[in-house]
């Protein structure tokens, strides 16, 4: 009885892991700025679903609380804060010319996911826990794919969402390997995420007002220019 329930929970957790990987691919593949935001929100939902599942199966109040904090912070608060502080036309932008075209980006993302699995496999020999076997590689893959989408993007908002997606990956691995982290640490980490968003939002707004565009390629004045 208990093992069937555990199996179901592990299965649902694996399902949310697969969907998290899918949303990570989606963030690399989409052109619209708003699309990146939507994929991030969906990814955070699956992250909190996983937190609820693991918290339920291990009777850990911490994880249930973390799930609620994740929903409150990443699904509700962050998009709302960004919508309020950033100018509206930032959301309608599309990246027409990407540094690397989308099929190649997706291929690189896939290779990163495979690399994450390989990096993690010597560590997984320590424990037989199937939840860790699923969460740790996909969490690391989320971090790597988020870092890649950060490098490959030019617009400011997808870059910030890339950082937040990396954070999602770290959390996803963390809820499996460190489920009993003291609540203070979890709260501090959550507050830190919000602060990151606020700071980058403020910066983006200032940049848009001063420079007019947040395309990183156009901000390249600081260099060792040869003097005429």
């Amino acid at each position: 009885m208990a093992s069937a329930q555990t199996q179901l929970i592990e299965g649902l957790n694996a399902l949310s892991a697969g969907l998290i990987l899918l949303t990570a691919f989606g963030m690399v593949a989409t052109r619209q700025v708003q699309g990146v935001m939507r994929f991030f929100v969906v990814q955070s939902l699956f992250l909190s679903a996983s937190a609820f599942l693991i918290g339920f199966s291990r009777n850990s109040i911490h994880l249930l609380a973390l799930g609620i904090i994740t929903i409150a912070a990443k699904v509700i608060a962050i998009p709302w804060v960004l919508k309020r502080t950033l100018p509206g036309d930032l959301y309608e932008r599309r990246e027409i010319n990407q540094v690397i075209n989308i099929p190649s980006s997706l291929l690189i993302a896939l290779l990163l996911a495979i690399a994450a699995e390989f990096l993690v496999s010597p560590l997984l020999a320590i424990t037989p826990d199937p939840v860790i076997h699923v969460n740790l590689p996909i969490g690391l893959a989320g971090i790597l794919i988020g870092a890649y989408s950060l490098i490959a993007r030019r617009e400011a908002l997808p870059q910030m969402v890339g950082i937040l997606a990396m954070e999602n990956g770290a959390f996803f691995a963390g809820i499996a390997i460190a489920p009993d982290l003291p609540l203070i640490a979890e709260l501090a980490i959550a507050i830190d995420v919000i602060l990151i968003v606020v700071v980058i939002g403020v910066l983006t707004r200032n940049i848009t007002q001063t420079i007019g565009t947040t395309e990183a390629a156009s901000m390249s004045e600081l260099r060792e220019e040869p003097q005429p």
Partner: protein
Amino acid sequence: MTLIVAVSLPLVAALLCWVRPLRSIAWGTTVFCLSISFAASVMTAGQVLRGGRAVAIPGWIEVDGLGSLALLLVTFVCTLAAIFAGGYMRHGGQSSERLWWFYSNSNLLVFALAVVPALASPNLVWVGVELVTLFATLLVAFESNAGALEAAWKMAILTIMGAPISLLGFLVLYWAFHSSGGGTAETWASLSAMASTMPPNLLKFAFLLVFVGFGAKSGLAPMHTWLPDAHSQAPTPVCAVLSGIKTTIPLYVILRFLSIILASPEARIGNWMVVIGLFSVGIAAFLLIQVRDYKRMFAFSTVEHMGIILVAAGFATHEADYGAVSQMLNHSITKSLCFYVAGMVLLTLGTRQISEVRGLVRTAPFVGGALLLCSLAIAGAPPFPIFLSEFSILSAGLRSGHNVAVAILATLIVIAFVAIMRHVNGMLFGKPESTAPVERVPPSSRTAVLLAAVPVAVLGVYIPGPVHSLLQLAAEQLGGH
């Protein structure tokens, strides 16, 4: 108790600067609170010297030798920077409406910097380092011109990118700690104690993640590209804090982690640290040759010194560790002095380009003299303290058998020395270019420079007893044999 005072006063000062009636005296509040904080950290250092550690809340807020050294450096550099900022910021034409925001933000930065060495739990240390990054980014963007915003944006992206990576590293460390049966609370001390029983694969993986995540914040190559921009575009007192202590604090965390790994007999990464450190020093040395902006010159020098500290920690002997911590100390005090002087040059002449500055000894003797002395100090000439610490690192390396690394390091240090002195020579001597009126340096800035010069002058020839003992204590924490 003094520990809590030292750490929390900057937060109090930040809040005070927010309060409307007190906004006009924001500078005074800041200097007052930070001076008391400095005194408190000196007293804490005294406690550590007597008892080995200073404990405020056991398991959460406590410092040992290395921590109290870092705390001391934080408060010293930040207090002097606050003193310097008084006249400098007013001269910069900023209205007092924005200045309170500047001081409040700076106090928050100081608070975050002070909190990192004072916390004993590694996960909260992560939060502290991230807060440091955030507040520093806001400060770099203070002047809101295109250059500052670009620098702040690059810094934000490159350094915050490391945040989730290092978070995963700390979580893996936590996992390793608990999977090898650590039932107590996780602190640096208990981690070191359990180091040999933790699975070495996990430790290495966690260290790799933390190193990648925090290495960008410390300016280790190849993730250093944001550093010259940020450290030159920010207002000068902020640059002093950034170069002087903000790059050292993530390196402090990396070194702590390194000491845990060295305590585990199976994980061997000392040589990798030497290689990466040499890579940073090399890149900095060669970039110093073709730099055009003197603030960027000092920023590249920061990259160089961070690399040297990492190399020293990689040698993993007790003498090399002593060299590493004394290099941390000497670099902080010297680099902040250099930035004060650079700020004075900027104030008097109004240009950042090296090529446009000529004959400084004639146009502004105080500034010119200070520039000469501090460049000699940062480049590593005797009788200044950096020469002593670099020499001890090199000799420790020779004694532990890393001959090739020492040879490469010595060559690179010489290249950097020549590069810096060539630029500074051009700035100091020769005919003055323009006859533009020279601004006078405000008295508060002069005071700060003189105060900052005292330890630089003294420590090169004589290291007082307590300082030496503190350095010894700190070196023990680094875990070399």
